[in-house]
């Protein structure tokens, strides 16, 4: 079970967590994280992702189940002996210590010699490009710099893995994007295992090897970013990651791969990929990405519909068209800006999509 510590360096096994003994915030969590992997726990607030992280860090104990780190159960090990680095939401830099002192703190409590400490601190500061800022206090640094100090502090004592709890939440958009790349590059460079928590899907998509989508204390889907985006397994994931057009209907018939769905408002039939549905006659939610819908009536002749242009938004590289299709007036199509788009609001447009691109999911 625990023999392969490379593919399950961190292993959550049947973890339940409840704060009040009644409501489970984490339900039967099973999760394997490989060594060197960058895994993101993504989900709305209250979905249990931070609780999971805190259990891994040792600040919360699982109600049931066990967490293994490198094959050893760690539930009984106090946080200060776990050798797990962590970047906190608001950095938790110690305001009464300089940057250097903040960084040498974990080394000092490990009784590492002065000269080694100095060297390691300098190396860590150089890594985050703050070599010159060692003598400053955290309050004298910008948000982005504080963020980097927190990162350096979490790495300086060479922990077995690093946890990050929405570390970029307090930064403005540009800085956040820049830091995403920086963290990703540091991860690539030193190859440390990272468990990252965020509610920002683009952050998760940018940085992660794999993403665990949390909702209601349950991992909805654990996959690489591309699969998560292109092949969501249920309607929560489809909705939470990226944009998507939703339609509900009833399954009329199905074969091994596809199913025929009659839309609710009698607007027609849709041939869709069978992903997560029950039997014929049951309800389903269809999901298609805006960029997978093409204008015109070409294609293989299935799923051709007519829509009324409600709104046009010019975004430079593409034009965002909001249409009224099959009674859904929130239907979005992204049209690449190739210079030939000449529709106006109120026009009727033919549009179609491939049955492989529309997924029939649970409701």
């Amino acid at each position, binding site marked *: 079970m625990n023999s392969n510590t490379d593919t399950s360096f961190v292993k959550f096994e049947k973890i339940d967590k409840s704060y009040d003994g009644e409501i489970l915030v984490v339900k039967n969590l099973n999760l394997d994280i490989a060594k060197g992997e960058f895994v993101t726990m993504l989900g709305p607030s209250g979905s249990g992702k931070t609780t999971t992280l805190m259990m891994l*860090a*040792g*600040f919360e104990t699982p109600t049931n189940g066990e967490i293994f780190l490198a094959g050893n159960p760690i539930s009984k090990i*106090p*946080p*200060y*002996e*776990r*050798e*797990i*680095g*962590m970047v*906190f*939401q*608001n950095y*938790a830099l*110690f*305001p*009464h210590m300089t940057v250097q002192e903040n960084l040498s*703190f*974990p080394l000092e*409590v*490990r009784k590492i010699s002065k000269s080694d400490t100095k060297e390691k601190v300098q190396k860590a500061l150089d890594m985050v490009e703050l070599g010159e800022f060692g003598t400053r206090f955290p309050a004298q640094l910008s948000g982005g710099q504080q963020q980097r100090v927190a990162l350096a*502090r979490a790495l300086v*004592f060479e922990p077995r893995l690093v946890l990050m709890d929405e570390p970029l939440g307090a930064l403005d958009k540009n800085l956040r994007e820049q830091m995403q790349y920086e963290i990703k590059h540091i991860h690539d460079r030193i190859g440390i295992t990272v468990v990252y928590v965020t509610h920002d899907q683009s952050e998760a998509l940018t940085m992660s090897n794999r993403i665990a989508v949390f909702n209601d204390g349950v991992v909805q889907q654990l996959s690489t970013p591309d699969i998560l985006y292109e092949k969501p397994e249920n309607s929560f994931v489809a909705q939470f990651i990226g944009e998507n057009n939703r339609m509900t209907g009833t399954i009329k018939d199905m074969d091994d791969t596809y199913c025929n769905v009659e839309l609710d408002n009698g607007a027609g039939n849709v041939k869709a990929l069978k992903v997560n549905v029950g039997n014929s006659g049951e309800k389903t939610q269809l999901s298609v990405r805006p960029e997978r819908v093409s204008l015109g009536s070409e294609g293989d002749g299935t799923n051709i519909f007519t829509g009324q242009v409600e709104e046009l938004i010019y975004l430079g590289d593409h034009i965002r068209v909001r249409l009224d299709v099959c009674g859904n007036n929130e239907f979005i199509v992204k049209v690449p800006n190739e210079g030939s788009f000449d529709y106006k609001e109120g026009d009727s447009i033919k549009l179609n999509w491939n049955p492989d691109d529309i997924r029939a999911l649970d409701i």
Partner: protein
Amino acid sequence: MPIGDMLLRSVDDGQINTVFPRTFEEYKKWDREKDELPPEIVYRTLFEELATGEKIQVGRALTRMNYSKSGWKSLIKKTSREIKKMTKKGEIPESYKDTLIQINKDWGDPTFWYSMAQMLNTKTPIYYWNAIDRTYDQDQNVIMQDEKRRIYVQTWLKTLKVSVYVTFFCLILGFPVAHLLANLPLRYSNLLMIFVLLPFWTSLLVRTTAWIVMLQQKGVINGVLVWLGILSDDGRIQMVYNETGTLIAMTQILLPFMILPLYSVMRVIPKSHMRAAQNLGAKPATAFLRVYLPQTIPGMSAGGLLVFVLAIGYFITPELVGGKDGKLIGSWIAYHLKTTLNWGLCAALGAILLGVMLIFYWLYNKIVGIDNIKLG
């Protein structure tokens, strides 16, 4: 303004010069080097000024004269009675000197005359010397007071000691309470806050007398201890009307001044700091000492300074529960202000108190930095 007035009064020595202006003028002309009595003219002016002097004015001057040498008051009083009698009868003495010595032989004692020299100037440091148990001898040298009159130095030391202890106990007791206040869920911390503030809003006098009820020998605490069999009935502890009582009552009364600044500082220390420290490998005790405690220094110093400054000038509580040996300097200031009317000494004691506080403030600023203070 009141402080300036106090400082002026503490060195003011003009009362006598206004009562006996001519005597002093003649007195100054006298060459005091020789161990002799002053010349006839000094006796004469004194005689005349005593005969015409207003009673209230003279009375005030006498009080001052008595500070420089005890005995002045009764001497002048007796003498002026005699002089008034004589002037009523219209007698004019042949030799003023002999007459005065005849009225009271102390007029032949040069030490009285020498002590008058202290009062020549309109400014004097005498009150400050008195405030630290010193006085002048006849040659204007600063000497210790008589053994039995030395009370201030020991009171000063006791005041400092009590203040330091009270500050220390407040810190020891206030820190955990403030920590609880800052970290308990809102529901409980609000309740606890009320427990802190309720006594704070209660009258000082009520709380002090409540402590008397609690602590006295037939009081609640002794009663409970005897009832529990911890103390025998005649082994009741004397906890009030002494220094212990002062310490206990003052600590309780000043505790909120420690808790509130501490609380306001602790409340803004993010809880993630302790977690971060532990995550970085520090045991909880290390995390507390190296990460939490240093961040509470602004609160500790604000509370400490506040409690100390309040304690050093405290008056009502030590006066009521302190008994004889629990009295602090504030009690003496009040005593001289209301009973002996020695306002000069009051002002000097007050000025020294102010000085001590300023020294502590300065020290504090050197060590902690005044910018570090945080009251809320």
